[in-house]
């Protein structure tokens, strides 16, 4: 009995920060965290509402899985198809379009597969496959990974058979994958925000951008308290409402890194 009390006291001390606050947990894609976006926006949210938002940034695939286990109050990811499935299965009542940016194909500046000259992203990917130049794939079911797979599919390249050869699946987050791509001098697909903020660029550059297929939409959902009774849907809803409000959108648009706007609010389209 004594030991139980002691253990309890220890946990209370270790966790002292957790209990006395209004808070929410955001299950999130990594790009919004690695780009410094939360660092910019969450203090403003806290100032207005008093709610502290804790971010667990794990990649879209893992974030959705965690959210399905009810381990979050809000989900912020970028894989529309899977988000719609998430809503249809009842894990959220509604999905809101939050903001967008785009994916970019990055690679060594001398561009061994000559992707720079290609007319479309699909054609650029096809060139990489044709010339068997190294490509680092996320391989982690993230939003970026599913877009990449979609482009390979459109390009008619079956990456499975090249896995471990020129097609290297890192199974890691965006930043780690960029590190790998740079380390081996290969191409990779990244979201623009992570790339702009990335510190270890070496001689790597954006080699292809601006195709419609590279459009990257971020979605925002409150996790349904009917599915997950422990969810703090009240505060979750406050967060979502604030983010899609005119003010929230303005703040999103005002976030810049090295003079460049990283995310473009489009909650109006909901």
């Amino acid at each position, binding site marked *: 009995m004594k030991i139980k009390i002691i*253990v309890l006291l*220890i*946990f209370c001390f*270790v*966790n002292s*920060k*957790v209990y006395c606050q209004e808070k929410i*947990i955001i299950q999130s894609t*990594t790009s919004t965290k*690695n780009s410094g976006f*939360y*660092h910019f926006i969450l203090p403003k949210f806290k100032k207005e509402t008093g709610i502290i938002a*804790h*971010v*667990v*940034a*794990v990649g879209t695939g893992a974030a959705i899985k*965690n959210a399905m*286990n*009810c*381990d979050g109050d809000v989900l912020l990811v970028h894989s529309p198809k899977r988000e719609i499935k998430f809503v249809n299965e009842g894990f959220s009542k509604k999905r809101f379009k939050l903001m967008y940016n785009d994916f970019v194909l990055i690679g060594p500046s001398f561009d061994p597969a000559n992707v720079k000259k290609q007319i479309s992203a699909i054609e650029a990917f096809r060139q990489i496959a044709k010339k068997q130049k190294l490509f680092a794939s996320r391989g982690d079911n993230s939003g970026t990974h599913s877009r990449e797979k979609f482009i390979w599919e459109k390009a008619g390249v079956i990456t499975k058979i090249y896995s471990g050869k020129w097609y290297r699946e890192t199974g*890691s*987050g*965006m*930043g*780690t994958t*960029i*590190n790998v791509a740079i380390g081996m001098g290969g191409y990779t697909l990244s979201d623009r925000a992570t790339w702009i*903020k*990335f*510190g*270890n*660029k070496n001689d790597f550059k954006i080699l292809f951008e601006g195709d419609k297929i590279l459009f990257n939409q971020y979605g925002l959902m409150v996790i349904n308290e009917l599915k*997950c009774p*422990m*969810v703090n849907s009240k505060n979750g809803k406050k967060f979502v409402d604030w983010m899609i409000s005119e003010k929230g959108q303005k703040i999103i648009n005002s976030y810049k890194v090295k003079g460049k706007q990283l995310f473009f609010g489009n909650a109006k389209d909901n």
Partner: protein
Amino acid sequence: MDIFGDAFSKSFNLIFSFDIDLIEILYLSAKVSLFSLLISCVIGFPLGAFLAIGKFPLRNFIVAFLNSLMGLPPVVVGLIVYLYLSRSGPFGFLGLLYTPSAMVIAQTILIIPIIGSLSCQILEDLDKEYKDLFKSFVIKRSQAISAYLYDARYSLFTVVLAGFGRAVSEVGAVIIVGGNIDHLTRVMTTAIALETSKGELSLAMALGIILLLVSLSINFFVVWIKHIGKVKGYV
């Protein structure tokens, strides 16, 4: 590579500017590691001593099992603890996931086998010396255990250090159950992982250097204590 030079100057700056964020992260690292170490010692030492002097069926099997648990992959422990503490898991109602407590639980599971196994090894050797003496005194087993632990205390420091080393350097488990949340569950190792994934290699390296300095100073401290013990002739 000028990353190393860069890292050294960055770590130097971080230390001497008393960076608040860094202090917070260091504090949490120490808090989580030390608490899990404390709990592990409370459980692990008696367990090790019990196994060292006990004679019962399956003893060797249990010792071998405990030894192999020393090699538990942190990610696996993280995953198991996650599944239990998840809101959809059996202990979800406690709301412990993504808190420092969850990290303490995971690290405790990781360290208990180390403390238990290594102390068992040390006390076994001691047992050979003391066995006959204790037999002639006819003392209770619990008394024998505390006598062993007390007499071996300086050797057991090394065991504690091994446990601390595991706790403070481990990243796989705490990143899963803690979530690497800024100002809440971010510790040195998860911060290093994050900075690496942001491509801030020299900053990541700087944090690594600081972590190394911390464990260096702790180890020097322990060597010093052992030295005092030796001088006094207890070891």
